């Protein structure tokens, strides 16, 4: 293969025009999951974000990376104007909630993405000790939404004529970054898991299901079916390590999408990690399960804008 052919193939891979629909599915799904999360945590706002919450003052700052935004900056900036901490916290959370609605409906999508990403980052920094995997993935993919044309389909921006839902190179590039990011994360996550004996001898699944924090059902019977637990561990490694290879060919893609969705639904149901399971299913479904070729898109849901 000559150099020019390789460059052309690379350019086609990254830049051949694609429908923005997969990106729109990601945008809507992510906004919905974060709205549900905000609703579930509504009674804990002051416990998690206030300076005299569960983790207080300087101790809370100890866990935050330096120079990253946090609510105490806003509180300090507004204190000369007699705005107290509680008002700052509830004000920020309200703006965050509004930005999620704008993001989900696709109204002023870029601005909404930027505001949502920044406020989400500020909130998870402020309550760093409480954050976990779902926050990490939300932060990563909210950052992508700022740059990719996620508002170019299934959005009020399109319905109002601010944007067109035609296939573009930007959509393809955005989709490729998301797809490759998922491949990297699954591959390296799988490799790290494979280093541990527990994933091979079936103990991992058994131990995870035994921990009180994840306890949903009585799974003690699993101790008498060790092969089942082993199979669970091996299947997880197989699908995670194989993701970067088998998610691409059409004939294995459906199997991998089904496997990954089944895996994360299992995590959601058996370990009670509902939002984490939901966001992981969404990422694979949006990145690899939504048609990207214009011809594969059967009926337009909204009329294209006349330019």
């Amino acid at each position: 293969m000559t150099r020019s052919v390789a460059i052309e193939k690379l350019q086609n891979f990254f830049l051949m025009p694609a429908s923005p629909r997969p990106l729109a599915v990601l945008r809507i799904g992510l906004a919905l999951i974060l709205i549900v999360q905000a609703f579930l945590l509504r009674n804990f706002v002051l416990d998690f974000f206030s300076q005299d919450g569960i983790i207080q003052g300087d101790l809370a700052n100890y866990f935050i990376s330096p120079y990253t935004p946090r609510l105490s900056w806003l509180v300090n900036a507004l204190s000369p104007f007699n705005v107290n901490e509680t008002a700052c916290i509830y004000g920020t959370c309200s703006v965050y909630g509004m930005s999620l609605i704008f993001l989900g409906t696709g109204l002023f999508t870029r601005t909404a993405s930027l505001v949502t990403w920044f406020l989400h980052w500020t909130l998870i920094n402020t309550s760093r000790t409480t954050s976990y995997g779902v926050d990490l993935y939300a932060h990563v993919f909210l950052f992508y939404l700022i740059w990719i044309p996620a508002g170019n389909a299934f959005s009020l921006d399109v319905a109002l004529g601010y944007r067109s839902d035609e296939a573009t190179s930007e959509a393809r590039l955005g989709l490729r970054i998301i797809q490759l990011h998922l491949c990297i994360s699954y591959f390296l996550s799988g490799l790290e898991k494979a280093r541990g004996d527990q994933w091979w001898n079936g103990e991992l699944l058994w131990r995870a299901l035994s921990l009180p924090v994840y306890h949903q059902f009585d799974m003690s019977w699993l101790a008498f079916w060790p092969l089942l637990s082993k199979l669970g561990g091996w299947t997880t490694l197989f699908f995670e390590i194989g993701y970067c290879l088998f998610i691409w060919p059409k004939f294995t893609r459906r199997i991998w999408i089904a496997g990954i969705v089944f895996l994360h639904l299992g995590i959601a149901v058996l370990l009670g990690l509902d939002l984490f399971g939901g966001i992981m299913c969404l990422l694979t479904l949006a990145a690899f399960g939504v048609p990207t070729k214009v011809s594969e898109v059967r009926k337009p849901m909204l009329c294209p804008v006349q330019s």
Partner: protein
Amino acid sequence: MSPYKNQVWMGFALCHLVLVALGASYVDLSRLGSLGKVLGYYSELSGAGSGYGFFAPGISGQLRVRFESNSQLGSNSGLGFIDGTVAERAASHEAILRLGNIVDQFPTDGLGEDAYDDPEIGVDADNRLKRSLASSLAVNMLKRHPEVKQLAVYLEEFSPVSMEEFRSGLRPQWTILYEVKFKEP
């Protein structure tokens, strides 16, 4: 998008993905000096520096904090931090998971040795952090229960047993790793 712009965005995307791979491999960028600091900050704000080793390489156990008071709540009543008073308002498992994550911030002995070059300093730093976390949680509980004048905080670890041990009749238990008592001045 113009061809020139395409190349620029593609280059930027590839650089970003390299940072994603480095972050997921836990490569310490701060070793690169000033450039490393800039890349580290970008990785933080974009999430490119995130690790993805959930449940990897294995599961050791679970930490919890338990409170005991000498008030009308009963001298031996365990005020489970996760499944007790705070969780009364917890509408969901989501909130309980997050409360559990706070408890995971307690350093255990093994973490102290890994986290600091000098084991002596490490142990001191770990003890200070344990004490600070315990007092932060105690202050929170005392605010919620003004009738409580004295409070003991126990950091406990749940060590799961293996499948073989379970079949032979062994059951997992909570063991106390650390305890400290607080009383109102």
